[in-house]
């Protein structure tokens, strides 16, 4: 994190290797709606895009700056409220502001709020910062139900996105038009956030995270570095809020309460805080879990909680961490070695997990379904949840799967070790 790394990293900014992921990503975004054409799919993709912007902005704090915030939704919510108010001004006063630039206002407002709060909350890092963010989050969430004039009470504030002047003939009547608007902002803000992490301030944020004292000795005020990261994160959270306002045409208290702040922490950590693309993964996986898993099972939040705790305990690098663990084997050309042990260990483990989940579903059904309603269906099979056989099968599958996985685990460990050792090198 010294000056040399700063200089050496700069020329690489415009290389093909650096630009390739962005091009592929943009292309991917362009093609997606051609593959998934239903409106609900587009709605869910929009939700994903908004969550990605929000999670990336959160990671500017947690991953890059080492600041654990329990109130980041405040800035997204504030940006969203401002944006929806703007939408109404456009409607009421026929302002000639086209819809696509609206997120800017959300971002600026989020940034303004972040400047006020950051002026005192970023003086310290660690627990004090976390506690202030919690307190401020709680206070603003409480205000949002009390101060009806700005926040609209529990009903929130709603607007109509189609009232602005048309842009090239597009009035944003359809989901697909909103999708491309969101996708454009997603790419733009992701790129800007990536570039921010490459600026001296972004680099210094890492330095302050890792060792604030040393950063101070280098002549940087760690407080100001934190402040800049905080304000930038507030800006992009505000943009996410603006996109939310455009997509749903309504912003409510739920956009800035602690639940929202908690879930963005969860999303970012699941995805992995150590890598830029981690939060993107987290947002995609979480949105899918939320929309799809919740259609399948009532206890999806329990699974989510288990997944989260397991991630913190065993894979603190998150999904991105797990993926990036494999770069070395690939670089050494030994990834092939891992394939067989993976299948031999992970497949039984997966079966074991499915068995456990099945057992939990049956138990839940047993305890909470109406008396007399014995029939339940699981994995596309219908059966009587009150008989012993199904749960016995589930438990046996679970036990068998885990036993197999455990038996084969040493093999995987050996293969892992082998794959990470350069040929001829001493481990």
């Amino acid at each position, binding site marked *: 994190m010294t000056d040399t790394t700063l200089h050496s990293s700069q020329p690489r900014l415009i290389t093909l290797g650096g630009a390739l992921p962005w091009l592929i990503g943009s292309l991917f975004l362009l093609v997606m709606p051609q*593959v*998934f*054409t*239903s*409106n*609900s*799919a587009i*709605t*869910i993709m929009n*939700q994903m895009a908004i969550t990605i912007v929000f999670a990336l902005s959160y990671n500017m704090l947690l991953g890059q700056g080492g600041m654990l915030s329990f109130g980041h939704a405040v800035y997204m919510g504030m940006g969203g409220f401002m944006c929806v108010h703007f939408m109404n001004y456009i409607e009421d006063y026929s302002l000639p502001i086209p819809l696509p630039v609206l997120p800017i206002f959300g971002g600026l407002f989020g940034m303004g709020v972040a400047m006020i709060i950051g002026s005192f909350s970023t003086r310290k890092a660690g627990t004090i910062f976390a506690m202030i963010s919690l307190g401020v989050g709680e206070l603003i969430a*409480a205000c949002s*139900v*009390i101060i*009806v004039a700005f926040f609209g*009470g*529990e*009903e*929130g504030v*709603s607007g*109509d996105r*189609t009232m602005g002047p048309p842009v090239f003939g597009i009035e944003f*009547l*359809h*989901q697909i038009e909103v999708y491309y608007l969101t996708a454009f902002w997603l790419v733009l803000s992701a790129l800007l956030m990536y570039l921010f992490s490459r600026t001296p301030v972004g680099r210094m944020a890492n330095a302050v995270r890792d060792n604030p004292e040393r950063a101070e000795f280098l002549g940087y005020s760690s407080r100001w570095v934190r402040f800049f990261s905080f304000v930038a994160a507030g800006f992009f959270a505000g943009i996410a809020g603006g996109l*939310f306002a455009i997509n*749903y*045409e*309504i912003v*409510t*208290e*739920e*956009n800035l309460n602690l639940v929202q702040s908690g879930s963005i922490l969860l999303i970012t950590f699941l995805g992995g805080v150590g890598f830029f693309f981690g939060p993107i993964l987290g947002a995609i996986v979480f949105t*899918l879990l*939320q*929309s*799809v*898993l*919740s*259609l*399948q099972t*009532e*206890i*999806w*939040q329990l699974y989510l909680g288990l997944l989260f705790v397991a991630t913190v305990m065993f894979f603190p690098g998150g999904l991105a961490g797990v993926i990036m663990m494999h770069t070395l084997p690939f670089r050494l050309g030994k990834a092939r070695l891992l394939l067989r042990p993976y299948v031999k260990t992970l497949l039984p483990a997966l079966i074991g997990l499915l068995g456990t989940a099945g057992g939990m579903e049956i138990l839940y059904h047993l305890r909470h379904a*109406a*008396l*007399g*309603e014995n029939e339940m269906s699981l994995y596309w099979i219908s059966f009587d949840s009150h008989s012993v056989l199904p749960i016995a099968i589930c438990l046996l599958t679970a036990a068998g799967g885990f036993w197999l996985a455990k038996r084969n685990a040493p093999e995987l460990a050996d293969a892992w070790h082998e794959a990470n050792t350069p040929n001829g090198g001493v481990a």
Partner: protein
Amino acid sequence: MRKSIKYGVSAALALSCIVSAAAAAENVKIAFIDPLSGPFASTGSNGLKQYEFAADELVNKNGGVLDGRKFEIVAFDNKVSPKESLIQLQVAIDQGIHYVVQGNSSGVANALTEAIEKHNRRNPDNRVLFLNYAAVDPVLTNDKCNFWHFRLDANSDIKMDALTDVIAQNPDIKKVYIIGQDYGFGKAVAAAAVSMLGEKRPDIEIVGNELHPIGKVKDFTPYARKVVSSGADAVITGNWGSDMLGLGKAVIENGFKGPIYTYYAAGSGITAAFGESGKGSIRLISEGQVNPPYSDRAKEVYDGFRARYPEGNIDMPRIFNTVDMLANAINEAGTADDVVAVAHALEGMTYESMWGGKVYIRPEDHQAIQDINVLVHTNEGITYDYDNSGYGVLLEHKVEMASADSPTTCKMKRP
């Protein structure tokens, strides 16, 4: 629909579409968008049970609607979040569903009614009707009314109108204490109580009018102390959930003896948790009478419901009205797919409810006008208890066709 089958959001989502489409190509599908997970899941899932039972018992058993099309309730979990509700609404619309029912939280109802209004305006060939069975914010049938929204429950002003009629007849009540949660609904209840009591019984003194933070209060004792020391004869509250239980318990525990008039102190474990302590004190303002059962048909239906869900409560009889009225409207319109015709059939419909009285849908604001009851929490004379606790709510007063001539600010725009 085809498209969503072909390229669903993901394998799983697509799969659920295929399954439901294949099993029920002919069915009239009704999207139930309410919480099925999270803190309000018990209210939501109990509502779902009532819908599923009502659809089977009142419609499907009698051969369905039109030429044998069955009602099918498709459940969507909205986690009481406006955002999730809008996503689920989109999924429902993509599945070709034309009818949406929702009730928990006026905030969600507000988001849904606005989204549906916009959707219907932007997609005239694929419109949706919204049957609101429990969100009681008056604004939904006043300033924010629209042609696609019908409210089958009485709104909070109507309930308050009925309640203040009952209070006005009771000469023992001279002092009233109003307390509620600090948000739109709590404030609406308080404002209505103050203005209506002032009109009907100017001699009644409002000794307290107070709001507390919603869902944040750990200990209601200080509020209860104020209620007791104010010398109030009656308490009015719009609280729900744990705020209702906490407030009620604290007020009774600290020695309050008079009636506590509530909107939501029944079912979902609250009746069981009050038990003996709430006897004769907790009152509930609601439509539909469960005890004593109004008609033999109601008895038959409740017995059938009990047989299927021994732990379930019919705490929202209006759900049965909703399902039956929708079926009648579809039959009258002769179509289930043209929601404009169905909406026209619903407008002005008068329906004889098995739970007592008539239900009339006012065409000018789509608000259902019906009998409103004041029920008392007790264990005597209860045919059907709640939460299997031995306690239930018994009819005490009935106000027929409450607020039938109440004014509305609704300016309905018809397609």
